[in-house]
């Protein structure tokens, strides 16, 4: 099953397999051997992911930018005349993810050792985490759509387990159910897409389908509809996984899980799987679908950013920010900025992860304060924070770096990737009519909104005075940066948020090695004005926006937003989308289910009941007929016989003379008959 593209190197293959299986081994060990609260489990998982990271780095450097994809296969099982293969497909995209996942997971693991230390289900946590890493790593290297789907579901499952990690909390449980079911909607679409492709091309092999010029997807003479419809299905899958409108509502709720989990799964890796999927099956999309992708991405980015403006829950803000950034990636995919999308994926993974980890530390400290002073506050609410800058310097610095990256200021990685997207969006819209230019303008607007809400977040949390004093002036807020186990991973990530990791030129994204790695992009040259104008304009606009935030939240002399305005409430209530789902769709489904149950009980069973009653009625009629007609006849007959018998019995007296009389009479009668008749 080797295609022309394939090129094998046993060592790389083995290493890649090892990368995938190491977390799995950790999962098994933790699951089967380690006791519930043993601290060993954390180290086992971390060690596994560390090894994974090292090995994946080796694999990465061996595969990156090589002309040949690596593709190996083995028969998994045969069904009918088709052999279903299991295999690896390593190209730039997958090795990037293969490196990215352990790179982000490693700090998170280390962080978690400290973060989860006091939890009663410590081992369980690392079991799940290792399982997630395994599933995620397997997802990115699989060459087979069926298996990819399998791991796609398994990461969702791991996410389900981790969101509901504290399963005694009702909110957590509802959130994980919601996450799984909403993801399932996308999964179903994805599955349908895969099955349609299979039905048409009789293979699950993505290499055959999508890779290179002779891929089936590029074949001539095939009805392209058979590619477009699955493409839309894939898009739906990606929308659910990457929390895009309209299936985004699970992600903010998913913040009920441990913060470290949010950092790894719901910011850096799993949600990016949707983008990864789009990258994998990119050839399946035609121009129309791509436009749809761009529109969805742009809308989601904008919507999430507006929602993030007014939220007070620290993690929720970050969640909406994640949605917004994922929207950016979608947008990039839609406008053909394939490489920029993946670039942004990588940079976003680092800085968003870092933001979450910082948030985790902050929430941790707030929780301490809450318990210490027995306050009735939500430790995640940014309205109660403030002034943490001096108390937690390390956290502040790392968090600021991440925030700046998120805003996209120069010298950060975010600048590189985000500007790439904006520029290419403008280029894409050029010459397509004004309607198309909504998308780049929306994107630009979104990046300004991003700057605002990030600034709001930073100012509320780190600057000013602690709001806790408003509750009780006596409180002396105490907070510390965590132990080294907290600090080291955060610093590692902070380093990754800066430009040198990606490009030696801090201003031109085109020079980033990561960007160049994806040849699919045709925008290699700084061809036109946009490449200069857009970054400058954006950065120039961002400065006043940040100042505006500063004015609003620190100096409190600007009152732009009416706290009770329609727009505010619209934003605060997350555009009412969640309520709509709960009140309309869930109700509708439940109603439908009750209806069918009613149908079952009353109509079908009722019908059966009526049939049964008819049967019983017939039975009763039959019984009546039996008793009075048939039995009646029988009774009459028996009566006759009985009477006859009684009559005849009269002769049977035992009296010999009586018999004799009878006998003689009979003789007489016979004689008379014989003689006279």
């Amino acid at each position, binding site marked *: 099953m080797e295609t022309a593209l394939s090129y094998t190197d046993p060592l790389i293959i083995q290493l890649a397999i090892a990368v995938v299986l190491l977390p799995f081994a950790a999962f098994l060990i933790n699951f089967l051997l380690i006791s519930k609260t043993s601290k060993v489990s954390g180290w086992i998982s971390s060690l596994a992911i560390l090894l994974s990271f090292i090995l994946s780095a080796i694999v990465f450097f061996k595969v990156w930018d090589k002309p040949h994809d690596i593709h190996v296969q083995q028969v998994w099982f045969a069904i009918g005349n088709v052999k279903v293969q299991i295999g690896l497909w390593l190209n730039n995209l997958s090795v990037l993810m293969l490196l990215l996942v352990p790179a982000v997971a490693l700090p998170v693991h280390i962080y978690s050792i400290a973060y989860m230390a006091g939890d009663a289900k410590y081992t369980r946590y690392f079991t799940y985490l290792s399982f997630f890493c395994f599933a995620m790593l397997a997802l990115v290297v699989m060459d087979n759509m069926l298996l990819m789907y399998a791991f796609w579901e398994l990461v969702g499952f791991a996410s389900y387990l981790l969101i509901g990690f504290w399963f005694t909390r009702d909110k957590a449980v509802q959130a994980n159910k919601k996450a799984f079911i909403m993801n399932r909607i996308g999964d179903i679409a994805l599955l349908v897409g895969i099955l349609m492709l299979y039905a048409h091309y009789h293979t699950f092999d993505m290499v055959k389908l999508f890779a290179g010029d002779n891929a089936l997807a590029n074949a001539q003479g095939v009805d392209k509809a058979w590619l477009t419809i699955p493409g839309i299905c894939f898009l739906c899958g990606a929308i659910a996984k990457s929390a895009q409108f309209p299936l985004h509502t699970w992600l903010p709720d998913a913040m009920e899980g441990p913060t470290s989990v949010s950092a790894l799964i719901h910011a850096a890796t799993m949600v990016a799987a949707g983008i990864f999927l789009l990258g994998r099956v990119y050839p399946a999309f035609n121009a129309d679908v791509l436009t749809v992708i761009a529109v969805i991405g742009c809308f989601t980015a904008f919507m999430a950013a507006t929602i993030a403006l007014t939220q007070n829950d620290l993690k929720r803000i970050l969640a909406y920010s994640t949605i917004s950034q994922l929207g950016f990636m979608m947008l990039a995919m839609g406008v053909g900025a394939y490489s920029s999308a993946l670039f942004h994926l990588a940079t976003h993974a680092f800085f968003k992860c870092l933001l979450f980890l910082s948030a985790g530390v902050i929430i941790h400290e707030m929780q301490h304060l809450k318990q210490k002073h027995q306050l009735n506050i939500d430790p995640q609410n940014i309205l109660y924070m403030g002034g943490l800058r001096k108390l937690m310097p390390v956290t502040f610095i790392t968090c600021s770096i991440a925030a700046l990256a998120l805003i996209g200021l120069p010298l950060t990685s975010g600048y590189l990737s985000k500007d790439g997207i904006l520029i290419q969006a403008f280029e894409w819209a050029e010459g397509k009519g004004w309607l198309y230019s909504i998308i780049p303008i929306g994107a630009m607007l979104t990046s300004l909104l991003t700057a605002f809400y990030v600034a709001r977040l930073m100012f509320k949390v780190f600057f000013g005075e602690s709001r806790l004093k408003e509750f009780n002036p006596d409180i002396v807020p105490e907070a510390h940066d965590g132990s080294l186990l907290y600090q080291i991973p955060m610093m590692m990530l902070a380093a990754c948020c800066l430009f040198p990791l990606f490009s030696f030129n801090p201003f031109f994204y085109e020079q980033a090695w990561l960007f160049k790695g994806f040849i699919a992009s045709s925008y290699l040259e700084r061809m036109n004005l946009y490449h200069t104008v857009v970054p400058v304009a954006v950065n120039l606009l961002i400065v006043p926006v940040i100042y505006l935030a500063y004015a609003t939240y620190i100096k409190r002399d600007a009152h732009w937003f009416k706290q009770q305005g329609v727009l505010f409430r619209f934003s605060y209530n997350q555009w009412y989308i969640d309520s709509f789902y709960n009140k309309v769709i869930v109700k509708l489904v439940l109603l439908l289910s009750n209806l069918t149950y009613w149908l079952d009980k009353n109509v079908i069973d009722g019908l059966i009941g009526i049939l049964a009653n008819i049967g019983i009625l017939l039975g009763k009629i039959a019984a009546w007929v039996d008793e009075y007609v048939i039995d009646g006849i029988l009774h009459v007959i028996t009566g006759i016989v009985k009477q006859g018998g009684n009559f005849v019995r009269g002769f049977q*007296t*035992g*009296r*010999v*003379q*009586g018999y*004799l*009389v009878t006998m*003689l009479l009979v003789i007489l009668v016979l004689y008379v008959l014989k003689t006279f008749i």
Partner: protein
Amino acid sequence: MITLTDFLFISAGLFCTGIFIVLSKRNAIQILIGIELIINAAILNLVAFGKYDKLNNAGQSFALFAIVLAAAAVSVALAIILNVYRQYKTIDPNKVERLKG
């Protein structure tokens, strides 16, 4: 000349009387007498018709047999009657209903 018809009438009278006795009496011995009467009526007929068979004497011969057999029957019947009496303390045939002693 005494005709056959005369004999037949007498025998018919005897026969009917015999039947009456057999049917009406409650006494086994009397019934036996009735039976004898019937037999005798029959023998009378045999004898009467035997007159017209000089060569073979069939009538008379069988009359003789009949007489002998009747006597034998009587002796057996009497023995039975006595036995019945011993068992049931009655010789009314209508009261002898149990067959098993």
